[in-house]
Each structure stands twice: as C-alpha cells, then as structure tokens.
C-alpha cells in the first residue's frame, strides 16, 4: 500500500472491517448484558461489559433463537465475529450464538452488598426519620449541571417557594463520584444555616444507564447516608431504578422531581387551608354575635334601658371601624353582621320610650321604682309619683284614683 495514499472514509471503514473479520475471525466472548433493545426489524442490540469496558453487540434476526430473554445484569457467552458497521464507522460484535451464564457478576456484587448492609442494620425501619411538615431549609446533593437539580428547583419554585435550597455539588457518575457524594452528604448533614441544621437533604441524579447510577450503589455513599445527622431523601434515576442508597435513605423517591413533591407541602393547598380557617373564624364570630344579639333583645324586652341607643351606636361604629380595616379581605364577613346591627338600631329608634313623649304622652313611676305605672291600681292615695315628660319631670302626690 502506498504511504502517500489518501483514504476516503468509506475505504477506511471497509479496510478496517476486513482486517477485523479476517485477523480476529470467529471468537467466544463472555460479558454482562447492559442495555438491551429489540428493533422493530427483529434484530437485537445490546451492550456487553465487564468492570472496565463495554462493546455493542448485534444479533440479527433469523439465526438460531436466543434461549432466554436478555436482561441487564445477566452474564452471557456469545459466539461471533468482530466487525465494523461501515455507514457509521462503528466497531461492534455480531453474535451468531448467545448463551446465558448464571446471574450477572455486577448484579451479584450489588446483591451481596445489599445483603451485608441489611444484616448490619443499615436498612432498619427503626432508623428511619420522618420529614418535617413545613421544611424551610432543604439541602440537595447532586451535580450542579444535571437535570435532577433543575427538576428539583422547578418543582419547589412552583410548589413550596418558602424554602431556601442549598446545593452541595458533587459528581454523580465516574470514578470520583462515590467519594464526592459521600463528602457532600457529610457537609450537608453538618451544615448550619442561621445556627440550625437543614430540615433534610435530597440525594440524587436523573435517569441514565444502569452503569451511570453505579455510584449510588457504592458502600461509601450508603454509609454516608446512614451516618447523616438529618433525614435523607434518595432520588436516583427513574421510577424503575433501585439503588442501595434508596434502601438506606429515610425516604425513597422514584425521581428527583418526585422527591421535591413528596417532601414539601403545596402552597396553593396551604392558601386554601388558610381561607378555610378564616371562614371558620367568620362562622364562629357570627354565632357569637347572634347570641349577643339575642341577649340584647331579651334585655330590651325585660325593662326599659335608660340609654340603649348609645350602646348600639358604639357597636355599629366599632363594626364600621373593623370593616374598614378588613376591607380587601376576600370574604366580606362583616357585612351581614353590620346589617343586623343596623336593624337592631332601627328597632331601638322605634321603641325608644322618648319618642311618644314628644307627642305629648308621659311615663309615670312611683318614686324609687323603675317599672312604670300601668294602671291606677298600681298606686294608692298618698303615694309619691314621678312623671317623665319629653322635657323634664314632675313630682306629685296621689290624691284619689279611679280604677275603672
């Protein structure tokens, strides 16, 4: 081959493919299944991986059937050739045989760690703490650039904007992630805001492939969650993803958005609650006013009150004053009450004992008594009586009486 030769992309991909196919030939390979997808065409695409590397595998339709349904975490043996998919320049393995080999190694490691931590008591229900009802200081341990943090703050801004959110940044995937997550969790757990610990901390990340969530299955992270002095809400990936940190955390949320939802009250609901409380107040004061009114009317019926108008006027004036101050409050709670007091006021005007006096009537009492004299038999000759006129009073002595 000429050293000066310039390849086209197509030529290079073809040469690479031929080299791989002829040099390597058909081989057996063992690995753990990662993501699996079945194309509408019936071809099966999946990744095979071990602790350090992965490769894309294709199994075309029409070969001998795969004996088991492939699932992530399963370890399989494949037989086939390594090739290049020329249109994309993608290096891949074309399997002609796929055979399962027991449960996946990574999955087995996950299960082993889970069992060990369970036995040690890290998942105990007795260790789990409830979240406060009205959290005001919320810690979040996640990546500052990830979707998770954006989701959490969007939900909180709409649902519970009274909160103060404190982000403790950490990588959520890659080699350094477990150490960073554990350190950030430790900081969040001990952090003092105005002298008080945070109400709780959300630990999480958005969805990703199983290997991207691996940091949340790390023992260091699990132990940091367990040791955290404040409640931890674990929110890793999507609904279906389960991580070790979910088991250790005080509360498990299916997604970061869900964590923000389930850990906070809804301020619209709170506003309704307050409206209802105000309505209850109005009902209570209403019935209190009614009973005062009843007492007032019955007092009115029992005797002549000397200066009743003033009392009502004071009440009405005070209600006007309150109504003025409360104007703008949505429930016009005082209106009906003011109307009722006005009515009582009118009633009093009509029954004011002074009104008839102006027309020439008068009221007579026996001196020293408060009930008016209603019939001649109430007095005896010689009694001192007092007559109340529209203006002034006359005191006199009974000479005679006629009782007919």
């Amino acid at each position, binding site marked *: 081959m000429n050293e000066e030769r310039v390849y086209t992309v197509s030529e290079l991909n073809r040469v690479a493919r031929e080299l791989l196919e002829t040099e390597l030939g058909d081989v057996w390979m063992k690995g753990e299944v990662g993501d699996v997808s079945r194309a509408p065409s019936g071809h099966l695409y999946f990744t095979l991986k071990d602790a350090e590397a992965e490769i894309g595998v294709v199994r075309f339709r029409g070969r001998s059937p795969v004996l088991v349904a492939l699932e992530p975490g399963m370890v399989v043996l494949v037989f086939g050739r390594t090739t290049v998919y020329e249109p994309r320049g993608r290096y891949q393995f074309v399997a002609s045989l796929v055979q399962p080999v027991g449960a996946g190694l990574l999955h087995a490691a996950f299960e082993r760690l889970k069992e060990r931590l369970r036995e040690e008591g890290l998942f105990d229900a007795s260790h789990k703490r409830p979240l406060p009802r009205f959290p005001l200081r919320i810690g979040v341990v996640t990546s500052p650039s990830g979707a998770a943090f954006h989701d959490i*703050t969007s939900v909180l801004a709409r649902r519970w904007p009274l909160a103060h959110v*404190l982000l403790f940044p950490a990588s959520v995937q890659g080699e350094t992630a477990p150490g960073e997550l554990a350190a950030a969790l430790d900081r969040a757990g001990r952090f003092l805001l105005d002298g008080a610990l945070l109400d709780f901390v959300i630990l999480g990340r958005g969805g990703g492939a199983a290997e991207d969530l691996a940091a949340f299955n790390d023992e260091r992270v699990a132990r940091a969650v367990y040791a955290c002095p404040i409640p931890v809400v674990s929110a890793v990936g999507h609904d279906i993803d389960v991580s070790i940190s979910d088991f250790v955390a005080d509360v498990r949320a299916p997604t970061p958005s869900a964590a923000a939802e389930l850990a906070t009250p809804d301020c619209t609901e709170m506003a309704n609650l307050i409206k209802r409380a*105000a309505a209850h107040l109005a009902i209570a004061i209403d019935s209190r006013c009614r009973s005062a009114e009843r007492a007032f009317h019955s007092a009115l019926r029992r005797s002549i009150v000397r200066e009743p108008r003033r009392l009502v006027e004071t009440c009405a004036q005070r209600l006007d004053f309150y109504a003025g101050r409360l104007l703008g409050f949505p429930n016009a709670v005082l209106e009906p009450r003011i109307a009722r007091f006005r009515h009582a006021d009118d009633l009093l005007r009509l029954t004011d004992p002074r009104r008839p006096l102006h027309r020439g009537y008068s009221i007579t009492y026996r001196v020293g008594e408060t009930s008016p004299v209603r019939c001649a038999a109430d007095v005896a000759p010689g009694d001192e009586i007092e007559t109340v006129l529209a203006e002034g009073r006359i005191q006199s002595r009974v000479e005679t009486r006629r009782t007919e």
Partner: protein
Amino acid sequence: MKIEEALAKLEDITSRLERGELALDEAIQLFEEGLALAAATKKQLDEARLRVDQVIEAAKGTLSVEPFDVS
C-alpha cells in the same frame, strides 16, 4: 412568625371562638387578630420566592455560600 406557628395559632383562635365562652369584646378582638394572621400568612405565601444557593468548599474545611443561578 413561622408558617406552622401561624397555622397553629389560627386553629387555636378558631376553637376558642367556637367554644363561645368569651365576652363579645374579647371575641371580636380575637376574630380581628385571627383575620389579620390569616391575611399575613396568605401574603407570606403569595410573596415567597424560592432562594437557591450553593455551598462549596472554599478552602480545606471552610465552606462558603454563594447564590446559584437556576435559570
């Protein structure tokens, strides 16, 4: 006042009013207090804006709080 305290106080005022044992003066005063509390709490909810900061390790062992731009 913290929102949970305001709510508890509101509940307390309502139940005291509902028992109906108070003098009219006291009842009206308490009612006014309750309404003012409800209005203030609702205002607090209406005006709240989420605050977002990040806490980073400035130097070994020293944490600093900085505003975090969510937009």
